[in-house]
C-alpha cells in the first residue's frame, strides 16, 4: 500500500497540525488511508503503444475496454506528449491519473500506461524484455519487422503479458511457446508441399 499518490498532498503530512487545518488534514489523511487499505481492483497495465519517431502507431494493446474514439484520442495525446520529451529526461510521466513509462529503442518508442501506484522501474524492464523477445524472434528486430509481421508481435506480447499482467517472464519459455505455434503451422502446411514435390518429380 503506497497511499494514494494522486493525492500528492497526502504524501508525507506530519500529524501535529493545529487549529482550523486539523479537520482538513484529517480528511486528506483519511482519504489516503482509506484508499490505500481498500486498494481497489486495478489493472496494472492499461495499455501499451509502440510508435515511431514520426508519431505513427505501430502496435497498440489495450487492457481496458474503451471505444475506438477514446483509443484514438488517448493514443494521440500520449504520443504527442512522449515525443515532446527531450533525451535524458526521466522515463516516467504523470498523465491523468496514470503513469506513462516509456523508452525509445532506435526509431521506435515503447510506451506503457500503468496505474499510478505501479512500480515504474519494473515496468521499464517489462518493455525491455518485450524488446528482447522481439529481437530474439526476428533476429535483430527493426521497425519494419513489426510492421510486416504485426500479428507475430501481438502473439509474442500475448504470451508475455496477459490481461495487463506478466504471464511468463522467462525469455526461453515465451519463445518456446511461439516456436511451437510456428511448428504447428509448418506441420499443417507440410502435406501440401510434399504433394507439390511429388507433382514436380
Amino acid at each position, binding site marked *: 500500500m503506497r497511499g494514494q499518490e494522486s493525492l500528492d498532498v497526502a504524501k*508525507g503530512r506530519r500529524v501535529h497540525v493545529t487549529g482550523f487545518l486539523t479537520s482538513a488534514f484529517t480528511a486528506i489523511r483519511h482519504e489516503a488511508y482509506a484508499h*490505500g487499505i481498500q486498494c481497489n481492483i*486495478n489493472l496494472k497495465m492499461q495499455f501499451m503503444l509502440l510508435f515511431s519517431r514520426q508519431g505513427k502507431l505501430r502496435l497498440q494493446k489495450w487492457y481496458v475496454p474503451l471505444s475506438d474514439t477514446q483509443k484514438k484520442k488517448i493514443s494521440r495525446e500520449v504520443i504527442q506528449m512522449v515525443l515532446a520529451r527531450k533525451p535524458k529526461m*526521466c522515463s516516467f510521466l504523470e498523465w491523468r491519473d496514470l503513469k506513462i513509462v516509456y523508452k525509445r529503442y532506435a526509431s521506435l518508442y515503447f510506451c506503457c500506461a500503468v496505474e499510478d501506484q505501479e512500480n515504474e522501474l519494473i515496468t521499464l*524492464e517489462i518493455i525491455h524484455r518485450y524488446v528482447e523477445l522481439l529481437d530474439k524472434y526476428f533476429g535483430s528486430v527493426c521497425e519494419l519487422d513489426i510492421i510486416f509481421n504485426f500479428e507475430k508481435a501481438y502473439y509474442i506480447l500475448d504470451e508475455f503479458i496477459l490481461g495487463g499482467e506478466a504471464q511468463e517472464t*522467462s525469455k526461453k519459455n515465451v519463445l518456446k511457446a511461439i516456436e511451437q505455434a510456428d511448428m*504447428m503451422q509448418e506441420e499443417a502446411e507440410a502435406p501440401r508441399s510434399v504433394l507439390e514435390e511429388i507433382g514436380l518429380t
Partner: protein
Amino acid sequence: MPAVSKGDGMRGLAVFISDIRNCKSKEAEIKRINKELANIRSKFKGDKALDGYSKKKYVCKLLFIFLLGHDIDFGHMEAVNLLSSNKYTEKQIGYLFISVLVNSNSELIRLINNAIKNDLSSRNPTFMCLALHCIANVGSREMAEAFAGEIPRILVAGDTMDSVKQSAALCLLRLYKTSPDLVLMGEWTSRVVHLLNDQHMGVVTAAISLITCLSQKNPDEFKTCVSLAVSRLSRIVSSASTDLQDYTYYFVPAPWLSCKLLRLLQCYPPPEDGAVKGRLVECLETILNKAQEPPKSKKVQHSNAKNAILFEAISLIIHYDSEPNLLVRACNQLGQFLQHRETNLRYLALESMCTLASSEFSHEAVKTHIETVINALKTERDVSVRQRAADLLYAMCDRSNSKQIVAEMLSYLETADYSIREEMVLKVAVLAEKYAVDYSWYVDTILNLIRIAGDYVSEEVWYRVIQIVINRDDVQGYAAKTVFEALQAPACHENMVKVGGYILGEFGNLIAGDPRSSPLVQFNLLHSKFHLCSVPTRALLLSAYIKFINLFPETKSTIQEVLRSDSQIRNSDVELQQRAVEYLKLSSIASTDVLATVLEEMPPFPERESSILAKLKKKKGPGAVSVNELEEGKREGGELNGGGERGDSSAIAGSNASTPSPSADLLGLRTGPPVTAAAPSAGSLLVDVFSEAGVNDDGFLRDLEPPTESSDSLLAEGPGDSDSAPPSVVSEDPATPLPESNELLNKFVCKNNGVLFENQLLQIGIKSEYRQNLGRMYLFYGNKTSVQFITFTTTVTCPGELQSQLNVQSKTVEPLIEGGAQVQQVINIECLTDFSEAPLLNIKFRYGGALQNLTLKLPVTINKFFQPTEMASHDFFQRWKQLSLPQQEAQKIFKANHAMDTEVLKAKLLGLGMALLENVDPNPENFVCAGVIQTKAQQVGSLLRLEPNAQAQMYRLTVRSSKDTVSKRLCELLAEQF
C-alpha cells in the same frame, strides 16, 4: 531461427503492406485501402467458397487496415469462422481479429463463445491457451457468464499443463475484474493460494497477480498467502544469481516475481507470527544490503531490476510503518539516489521519500535532505522531476523549516512552469497558514504570492487570508499597513485590490493616524484601481467605500459623490447599480448609530476546514479522467474516500448555488441591502434566517461564511429592530438521548463501521476512521419509507465538559431525504484531551407532517484514539510497574456476557485499537495489550490485562494508564464488551 520468414505465410498481405507504405499521400493511402476493401468484400460475398488460407489472409488484411485507424464494418463473421478451423495459424488470426475488434454483437458473441468452449475442451494445450488469451483480451460480461465456472477448474486441475495454468490464472483475474460476482471462490481458495508454492516460476508469476487481487477483496480468506509469500520471497532473495536460470534477469533473480510478492504483502499488516515476521525483516534487510553492493553488471537493466525490487521493498517498509530501523535505512538509501546521475532514480527517490516523510520514524531523516531537494527544485531540467521535488518539500515541511521551504517555493514560483503554478500557489498558501507562528509572516507570504503569481491565486487563497486577518486582531494593523503599501505599486494584480479593498474597509482605521495613509489617501488609492477592475471587484470596492463612510465620516461627501456619479448609479451592471443606489441611500438616511451597527466590523469566522486544502485535494483528485471512469471497480472500493469527495464537491456546488452572482459581498448581504430589507423580495430571506437557525445559506460567499449572527446582523439590527439574534443559534436544549443509546454506543467500542440505529423510518449507518488524535466519521441517513423526510436537520453537541475535550465539526446535511434515499454526513473529530462522555447527535425531521426528534450518542470513545504499541515482555512489565500508583489502575471483575471464544476476544481487543501482545503474559490464557491514546494535549500510555476464567465464566480486567480518568473510562467501556 526461422523467424524472419514467418510473415510470408501470406504474401498478399506483405504486398499490400508495402503498397500502403509506398503511398505518397494520405489520399493515396485511402484510395489503396478502399480498393482493397472492395476486393475483400467481393471475395467474401463471392459464390466461390474461400479456402481457409484466403480467409485468413483477408481477415488479416482487414485487421491491418483497422489498426491503421480505419473503420471496419465487415469480416467479423469470416473471423469467427476461422476460430473453428483446425489449422493453428487460421485459428490464431481469427482470435487475434476478435481480440482487437471486439464487437458486442450478441449473436457473434454466442458463436465466439462456442468456438472457445470447443478449444477449451480440446485438451490441446496450444488451443486452450489461444482460447484463454481471447477471453482475457476481451473479458466481456458474456464471456464471464460462460466461462467463470470452467476456468477455476482448469487452473487447479492436476493434469493441466503449466502454460495453460498461467493463462488460466490471468484469464480468471481479468474475469474477476470485469464481473467479480460471477467468479466464485470458495472450495478452490486454498488450492489457488498454494500455487505460490508451485515448482514452475512462471505459474507462480501468473498466479500471484490473481492472488493479490483476490486478497485485496477478501483478505481474510487468503491470509494464508502471507507466510507462503514470505518463504517464497526469502528463497528468491537468498538465491545466487544463477539459481533461477532463465528467471534471472541481468543477474537479478526473478525481479518481477519479487516485486509482485512484495506487493502482495502490502495487502496485509505485518505478519503476526514472529518467525514469519523475522524472516521477512531479514529479506528486507538483504534487499537493502544488496543495494550497497557493487553492481554485478554495468547494464542499466541490471540496476533497474535491482532497484525495482528495492523500491517495492521500501514501499512495504513504509506500509508497515513499524520498523524504525528499516525506515531510516530506506531513507538513507533514497538519499543516495537523490544525487544519482540517472534521472529516473532521482525522480523515484523524490517520490518515495514523500511517503517516508509521513512516518514519524523517518520524518527527521527525510528532513536532512532538504538542501538537495531545494537544489533539485532549482536545477532539474525535467519538469516532472521538479514537480516531485516540490511535492517532497511540501511533505517534509514542518515548523522548523517552514520559513525556508516557503521562501524557496515562492522564489521557484517566479520561474515555475505554468502547468504547476496553481498547485504550487495552493501549497504555499497551505504551508504558510499551517506553520504560521507569527501571522505577519503569513500575511507577507500570501501578499507575495499574489504579487508573484496573481493569476494563479484562486479565490480560496484570498478568502482565506481575509478570514485569518479577521479572526486575529493582532495582525489586523499589520495587514492594513502591508496591503496599503502593496497597493502603492503602479501595477497591482486584481486579487491584491480585492484583498486591499476588503482589509482597508475593515481595518483602514488602524493606519489612518499616519498622515501618509489618512482616510482620504486610502480611499483615493483604492479608487485609483477601481476603473481597471472587473465587476466583482468593483462590487467589493463599493462595499469597502460604504464601510469607509462609517469608519471615517470625513470621507462621506467624497464617497457619496463617487456613488452618485453616473458611472455607478447608472451602471449597466445590475449588481453595481444596486449597490451604488442602496449604499448612497443608506449613507444619507441612516443615523450614525445605525450606520455603525449596520456596518460593524466583521465578526470572526467560525474555524473550519481550509477551503484551500479542499481545492488542493480536488486538483489532485479524480480529475478529468476518462480512462478510469470506464473502469468500474477502480474507485468504488474506496467508498470512504469517494464519499468524502462527494461531500466536498457537493459543498462546493452548494457554495456556487448560494452565490449566483460572482460579486464578492463584503457585508454578508446577498440579496437585500438594508434599505430593501423589508421589501417583499427579501421576505423569504428573512424567514430563512429566522426560521432555520443555524442554516446559513444566504449572505457571504460560503467560503467566507461568517457566523449566523453576522450574516443576518443587517437584517436583525436594521432600523426599528434592535434585538439581535442570540449569539449561538445552534445551541439547542440538551436533549436527552434515547434510553438504548448507551447500548448502541457500546456496540461500537470495538468496531468502527456498522448500523448505529434503526427504527421503522430511519436507518443510520456509520463508518469511521481514526488516526492519531483525529477522526472522521461518515453517517449515512437512510430513509426507509417511501415518503420524503423534510426539514431534516442534525446537530452534534458536546454536553458539558466534553466541549473542551473534543472538537467535533459536522457538515450540514441535505434538508430533504427522498423516500428510499440515503444522505451522508461527514463529521470531523479532534480529540483535545481525554474524555468520558460521548457527543450527542440530535436528529429532527418531518415525516408526513409529524415532527420526529431523536437523540443518540455518537460512538466516539476514548479508545478510538489508540495507537497500538508493540513491545517485548520485558518492556511491558517494566512499564506496568511504573504505573503502580493506585489511582492509575482500574480493575473490574465481571461475568462473561458472551461465549469465551479466544478468537472473538482477540478480534475485540484488536478492535479496541491497542496492540495485542503475544508471549508476554506467562499464562497463555491471558491477554495483554498496550497502546498510547493520542490527544492533542498529551499522550496517555495504557496497558491492559484481561484474565478470563473459563470455569467461572468470569473475567478480571485490569487497566493501567498514566491518567486515572483514562484507566477508569477504559475499564468501564471494556467491561461491557465481553
